[in-house]
Structure formats: structure tokens, C-alpha cells
């Protein structure tokens, strides 16, 4: 949670710098015996709260490989539940591939559009600039369901019914307010002198963007890509409404449908395995890119 990267610096520049978080109580950090005794209740309490947050995740992972009646893993430990999952309808690989396709296409489109859009909003003055920016932010104000019903009709109209490309286009649109906003403040944090110098040296505005600015806004791009991936990978409602064909379902939809397939009896083991497969990439990305993840939340909060 260190605040040190360029996009947030832009947001801070106008206001005050966030107060350095110094220990407020003298002696609270000292490792004297009295200090340890004073802090022990705090450690026990906060540790217990942390366990509450971690327990469901750990439990699911353990339970998915542990023996359990009514699942494919009745005795002993093993990956029986994952075998059930692998053979469910079109097979888990199919659904993983569908989810990966939707997620990667959404990430690519979101990155491209918000990079160009953020550049336009931060560096150029053109008629309609403010209206377009406000319209983009207005997407946040409109309920998901309100847009998905007409989108279902519209995508049918243009032959994108039941299509993973259609889902990716819709998910990209829902990512635009956050990503355009974040890329705009990322570009605004880069001193204008940098690209103006590049232009004096004979670069076109596009070369300046590609060669000089893209490296400068890279942290912003990582945050935008991470959030687009998490949103697309996890999205449930858009594929639920836009996809009817079980061959084209994404993973969250498939795991949700997996419950109660066999005469209404729920295979809890396979559901646990499905949750693990769904959660694993998200948790790994979170642990790897924690700083970028937190910055995404913060930039929104700073500008309100």
C-alpha cells in the first residue's frame, strides 16, 4: 500500500500529499517486553479477523480434494471432483477456453480504446471533448440490467447473438468509464514537455504516443488491464443473458449450472472444484499485482 506511482501522484498534485503514515503512538512499535504485552491483544484480535476472511478460500481449496459423500471423491484424498468438472457437458477445457477468449479480448479492446481515448482527452482539445468524457462516465450511472436487455436485442439484430465476441464488446463498454478515467489522469501526470520535446524532434503525435508516452503510462495500463481481466473473467450477468448455447458458456455460468444437474442432487464437490478453478487466476493476479490493484481503487477514490 505504498503510494508512490505516477498516476496517483497526478491526483495528489492538486491537493496535499497524503500524510506520511508515521506511527502515531510513541513506543507502540518498540519490541520491548511491555510493548509486546501491550500489542498482544491487538495481534490476536486482528489475526482472528484475518482468519475469518481467509478461511472460506482455504476451506474450499482443501474440501475440493478431500473425501466427501455424494461426490466423485468418496474415499481418500484426490482430484476426483476435478475429473467430474472436466467431463461436465462440453468439458471444463471448453469453458476455460471460452472464458479466456472473452477475458483476453476484453483486456485487449479495453487497453487499446482507453489508451487512445485517454491520450485524446488529456492532450487534445476538440469539439465535443467534455460531452464525450461525461457520456463515458455516465455508463457508471446506468444499471447493468437496464443496458443488457436492449443489448440482447441489438446484438441479435447484428448477428452477434450467442457470441463470445458480443459478450466481450459489451464487457469492454462496461469497463470504459473506469479505464478511460484512469488513462486520462495517467497521461495528465506526464509532463507535457516530454511529448512536446518528442514532437520538436520530428515525431508525429502517434510516434510520440507509442515511443515516449506508452512507457510513461505503463503502470496505468497494467491497472486497467488487470481490472478488465478480473471483471471479464468473473462476469456472470452478461453471459447469462447474451449466451444461450451450452457450448459457448463461460466458466462462471458453467459452474453455476453444474449444480443440480443429476436429478436435482447438487454435487458440492464439483462445485468446490469449479470455485477453485475460477478463483485461482484471480488470487494469483491479486498477489502478483497487489500494488496496481490497490492503486485502481485509490485513483477512483481520490477524484471522487
Amino acid at each position: 500500500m505504498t503510494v508512490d506511482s505516477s498516476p496517483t501522484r497526478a491526483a495528489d498534485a492538486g491537493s496535499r500529499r497524503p500524510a506520511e503514515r508515521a506511527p502515531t503512538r510513541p513506543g507502540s512499535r518498540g519490541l520491548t517486553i511491555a510493548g509486546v504485552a501491550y500489542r498482544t491483544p491487538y495481534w490476536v484480535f486482528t489475526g482472528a479477523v484475518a482468519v475469518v476472511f481467509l478461511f472460506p478460500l482455504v476451506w474450499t481449496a482443501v474440501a475440493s480434494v478431500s473425501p466427501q459423500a455424494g461426490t466423485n471423491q468418496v474415499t481418500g484424498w484426490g482430484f476426483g471432483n476435478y475429473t467430474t468438472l472436466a467431463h461436465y457437458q462440453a468439458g471444463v477445457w471448453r469453458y476455460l477456453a471460452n472464458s479466456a477468449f472473452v477475458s483476453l479480448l476484453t483486456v485487449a479492446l479495453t487497453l487499446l480504446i482507453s489508451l487512445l481515448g485517454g491520450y485524446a482527452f488529456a492532450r487534445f482539445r476538440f469539439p465535443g471533448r467534455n460531452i464525450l468524457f461525461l457520456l463515458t462516465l455516465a455508463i457508471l450511472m446506468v444499471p447493468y440490467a437496464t443496458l443488457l436487455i436492449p443489448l440482447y436485442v441489438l446484438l441479435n439484430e447484428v448477428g452477434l447473438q450467442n457470441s463470445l465476441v458480443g459478450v466481450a464488446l459489451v464487457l469492454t463498454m462496461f469497463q470504459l468509464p473506469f479505464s478511460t478515467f484512469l488513462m486520462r489522469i495517467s497521461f495528465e501526470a506526464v509532463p507535457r514537455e516530454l511529448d512536446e520535446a518528442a514532437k520538436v524532434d520530428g515525431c508525429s503525435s502517434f510516434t510520440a504516443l507509442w515511443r515516449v508516452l506508452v512507457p510513461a503510462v505503463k503502470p496505468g495500463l497494467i491497472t486497467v488491464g488487470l481490472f478488465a481481466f478480473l471483471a471479464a473473467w468473473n462476469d456472470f450477468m452478461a453471459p447469462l443473458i447474451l449466451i444461450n448455447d451450452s457450448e459457448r458458456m463461460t466458466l462462471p455460468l458453467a459452474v453455476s449450472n453444474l449444480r443440480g444437474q443429476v436429478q436435482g442432487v447438487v454435487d458440492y464437490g464439483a462445485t468446490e472444484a469449479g470455485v477453485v478453478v475460477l478463483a485461482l487466476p484471480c488470487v494469483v493476479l491479486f498477489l502478483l499485482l497487489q500494488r496496481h490493484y490497490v492503486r485502481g481503487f485509490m485513483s477512483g477514490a481520490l477524484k471522487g
Partner: protein
Amino acid sequence: MNVSAPARPPSAAVRGRARPSRRQALFGWIYATPTAVFVAALFVLPLLLVVKMSVSRWPLLTGDQGLNAPDNFTKAVDHRFFTDSVVFTVKYTVIATVLLLALGLGMALLVQESSRWNNLLRASFLVPSALGLASASLLFYVLYSPYASPLAPVVERLGITFLGSPNAALFSTVFLIVWRYAGFYMVLMLVGLQSIPADVFEAARSDGASRWQTFRSVTLPLLRPTLALTTVLCVTGSLLAFEQFYILTKGGPDNSTITVVQLIYMIAFQGQNDLGVAAALSVIVLAALVLINALQLRAFRSEEN
């Protein structure tokens, strides 16, 4: 940064007053075109279409059958689950918002100081927020089940179920939401706390204020912008709740946990298959949401004065 900062405002002002050059406008539009296309085709157009659908007879399978205003709106309001779902959604929103904001702020105060232990705590509070709401709901679906849950023996002895009665289902879902979102609100609260200058606390302490007094008369008032933002976010998100109830409770028991968005989905795709009525209900929700958010922002602003 230090060199450029003083130079920037005047130069920006000059650029703003000067006639924007044609070239600049042209390039601006070129770079903004993808955004404009997406916003126009996938946001503005559907928004116009949903308004048209709300005043047309529009069955799921046959499509547009011509205008019929205001039938869809009366049908939506007269729907047998309309009142129940509105009441339930509001009830859920109030409970979820109060709990999430209070816990988010509490957790932020708990881990505010930077230390290795606190960094670990922050990470563990935040991990669930990386999961999708659907995955989290599926996880708790198993965790709450009478067969697979590790809590099953305890629950059985106490004679309660997680999802068996309307109230139990509501609070079980609220617990899931708190687990999934508390870390997110903690981060927003931390940002707000950091933006309060340290010398204000310094002054309060030298005036002999107790911790509680400092919290009530220094921290809370200065945190108002953050509280406004988090309230608006949380109220909006809760009013539009769908996945948690669709997956976890399926609207039950006895249709007691149907939210408004779930009702829209039911009308459109489950049984009734009437997109026109669903569109009318969506328009009502949109209008209500805009109104509620405007009222909230106004309330926070007027308190400030």
C-alpha cells in the same frame, strides 16, 4: 515534477484561451473515435432502445409489436412481486450499506499504521475482493449447504439453517457481501484517512481530546467526502443486487429474497418472456437510481454548509 509544475498552469491557460487549432481537433477526434464508437453503439443506442421498448409490446420471441404505452409500466407496477421486491431490495440495501461502511471504516482504523503485520492484514482483507461475485456466491452456496458445510454439525445442533428462513437467507447473503466487499471499502476509507493532514490530529491531541472525541469531531467530519463517495457506491451496488441472490438463494425461500434486478431478469427471460415490461421496469429503476443518487449528493453537500 517540481520544474514543470509551476510552468504548467499558465501554459495551459494560454492554450485554453487560444483558438484550438484545426489540426489538434482533428487528431483529438481520431484518437477519441474508438471511445466514441463504443459509447454510441453500446451505450447511447441501447439506452434509447430501452426507452422505446418500454413503451412497446415486445415479447422475447417475436420482437417489436408496436407502441402500447403505458401498458408496460402499469403491468410492471402491478406485478405480483413488484412491491415485495422493492421492499426487500431497500431493506437489503440499508443493512448492507450500514454494515459495509461501518466495518470498512473500522478495519481501516485498525490497519491504518504501516507495519509488516498490518500490510499482511490488509492483503488478507482484500483477497476476497479479487474473486468474482458469482464465484464468491458459489463458494458460500457450498459453505452454507447442510451437507458439505464444515459448520453443519454446529448449525444442526442449534436448529437453524443458513438459507432456510427469509431472515436467515437475508443475513447469510449479507455476510457473503461483507466478506467480499469489506476490504474494498477499507481501501477507500484508508485513502480518505490519509488525506487528513497529520497536524489536525496533532492539534486535537495537544488540546487534550480523547481518542473518541478526536474520532467524532475530527476524523468523521473530515472524512465526509469519502463517506459520501462510499455511501453512493454502496447504495447503488446494493440496489442493483443480482448474482448473490440469483445463485445463493434463488429468490427463496418462498420468493422472499427477490430483488428488483432479479425481477427484471425473471420477467424478461424466465417464463413471462416479456421484454417490454422488463424494459419498463428497467427505466423505472434507472430513474429511481438517478433520483436517489442526486438526493444523496445533495444531502452530503447541504450538511457541509
